[in-house]
């Protein structure tokens, strides 16, 4: 990666000083100022209700961003994350939608949906680690295949008659906290623990940092590369199931936007934390871009600029990160 983890780890000097702290956490400083200024301009921004709204809005983005972050940490990229999410949700919904009459228990259908995600993750992982195709190309090809395949069983019609027990998975609130947030937090926490405190996470980071050295050190490079894609597929499918049950309707392209969200979250996170603690970074990235969009809407910028805000955020983060690392 150009945002080299290795270099930064070496260059990091431990000397304290207001200047160094500012430089090291410049991006955070910037976003902190943003929160305070927006809060002053529009007091509604920093109310509990609005912050909970931001958390709800960022939940699915945070899930897919963290899944993407695991893949990116291992030196890959998964462009199919959005369509995998859509397919997992669609197949689970297809099996329980009253209109199609399969009437399979909801629990089983959800498992099948997750299984589809895991299966696609397995295929991607095998193609990347055994056949040694570049993961960007593998997932683009899978994007093609899934974009076709998802029309083959529903013929593009929407799933409108999902049972209530399925809708209860993601469509509710406890004490104002959305179910989406309640699902997201443990999964992100589990991913964080896996990446930071287990052997597996350490190996994934090492493979992403320097694959040749990892191989020399005797790490099962293929196995751990495989796992990153498997995990991403599984989590993508689950977020697809969540979005379907939250909206109460399943469409073929319901999760296509997840790819862009995952890009924004994971890339922003990588830049924010200099490629360390990627899962935490991706989570923060998702929170930050969602709050920017929320702030823009509260301040009356209008919905047309949502995408431009995402793009400007990545560009700004890249530039700030670059300036900071030049200063060092």
């Amino acid at each position: 990666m150009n945002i080299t983890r290795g270099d930064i780890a070496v260059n990091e000097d431990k000397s304290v000083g207001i200047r160094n702290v500012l430089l090291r956490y410049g991006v955070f400083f910037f976003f902190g100022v943003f929160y305070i200024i927006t809060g002053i301009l529009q007091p509604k921004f920093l109310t509990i209700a609005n912050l909970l709204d931001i958390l709800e809005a960022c939940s699915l983005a945070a899930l897919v961003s963290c899944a993407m972050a695991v893949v990116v940490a291992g030196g890959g990229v998964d462009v199919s994350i959005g369509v995998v999410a859509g397919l997992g949700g669609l197949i689970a919904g297809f099996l329980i939608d009253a209109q199609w009459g399969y009437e399979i228990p909801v629990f089983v259908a959800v498992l099948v949906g997750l299984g589809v995600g895991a299966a696609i993750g397995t295929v991607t992982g095998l193609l990347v680690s055994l056949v040694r195709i570049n993961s960007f190309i593998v997932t683009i090809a899978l994007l093609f295949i899934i974009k076709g395949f998802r029309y083959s069983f529903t013929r593009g019609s929407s799933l409108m008659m999902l049972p209530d027990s399925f809708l209860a998975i993601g469509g509710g609130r406890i004490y104002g906290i959305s179910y989406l947030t309640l699902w997201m937090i443990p999964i992100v926490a589990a991913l964080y623990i896996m990446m930071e405190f287990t052997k597996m996470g350490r190996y994934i980071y090492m493979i992403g940092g320097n694959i040749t050295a990892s191989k020399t050190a005797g790490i099962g490079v293929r196995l751990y590369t495989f796992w990153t894609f498997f995990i991403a597929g599984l989590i993508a499918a689950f977020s697809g199931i969540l979005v379907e049950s939250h909206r109460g309707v399943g469409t073929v392209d319901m999760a296509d936007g997840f790819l862009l969200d995952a890009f924004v979250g994971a890339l922003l996170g990588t830049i924010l934390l200099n490629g360390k603690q990627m899962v935490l970074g991706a989570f923060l990235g998702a929170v930050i871009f969602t709050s920017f969009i929320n702030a823009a809407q509260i301040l009356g910028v209008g919905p047309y600029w949502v995408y431009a805000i995402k793009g400007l955020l990545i560009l700004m983060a890249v530039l700030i990160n670059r300036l900071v690392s030049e200063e060092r």
Partner: protein
Amino acid sequence: MASKRWADFISLYGSLLVVIIITAFFCLFARRFACWDNIQNIMVQTAIIGLTSLGLVTVMMAGEIDLSMGGTIGFTGALLAGLVMQQGYSLFSALGVCILVGLAFGFVSGWLVARYGLSSFLVSVSIMFIAMGLERAYTHGLTVWIRKRPDVLFLAQGKIAGLPVLMIILLAAVVIYWLWQTQFNSGIYIRAIGENIDAAREAGIRVVFLKTVAFMIAGGFFGFSGALNAIRTSGNVLYSGQHVWIPVLGACFFGATMFTRGKPNILGAVVGSFFFTIILNGLTLTHVAFYMVPIVQGLILIGAVGVTAMRRKEIEQVKF
């Protein structure tokens, strides 16, 4: 020894063989596939993807990647439709504005990547988002139709001397581009930068300048094909760039599997774009279900890239 030579041949021309076999299959079994009308059709259908691929392959040959077309094509398409229909621009000034906008996007990403060494993946993804946002801000999320402007619509729907204009544009662009790449120093230097940037710098090639130029050429192509895309469909639908994004990436990566050992090349990109359209066209003519088209395209892409990857010793990681 013989088997090694055979393996060499397969890895260089294997995907070209697949292209030829499948095209031959369609010629035999798809009614009216190989007639002149349909060949013109294929040319017209390829034009947008082909022109965009020429742009993308320039950047890929310089060793970088540019994903911004997902946004710029939609934005310039909306811009052209808006300028022509709402501001009353003439065709050529509107086209000029679109190409200039593309060049400007290319300049921004190229300058940031070449001068400051930022990752082209990150920069171009953010440019894509910015362009998508601009498109939506410009059109307010509405579809801008191009109507009652025969001069504009002629560019993409008309015929000169019995040949579709889009076909002429595509073929002319391919020929001019090919000449530039092979006959002019700048074209050769761009490839040298992609092969080995340090060696190119040592040899006195102006690396920063030429990399920026590569991105600007790509941007110009994206702007132009975005405008053509809007004209071809008589208007710009929101985020139309997203529908070009994936086929173009597929065509360029498929093209990289032929003629060279997994390196992006012009001829490959052109053949790749044509091949993806041929699959679409041929499968439609043989009455295969519409959703089989991307499935077949994806499977062929995986197969082609997989064969190239077999010689590799190590997992290939994504650098961004």
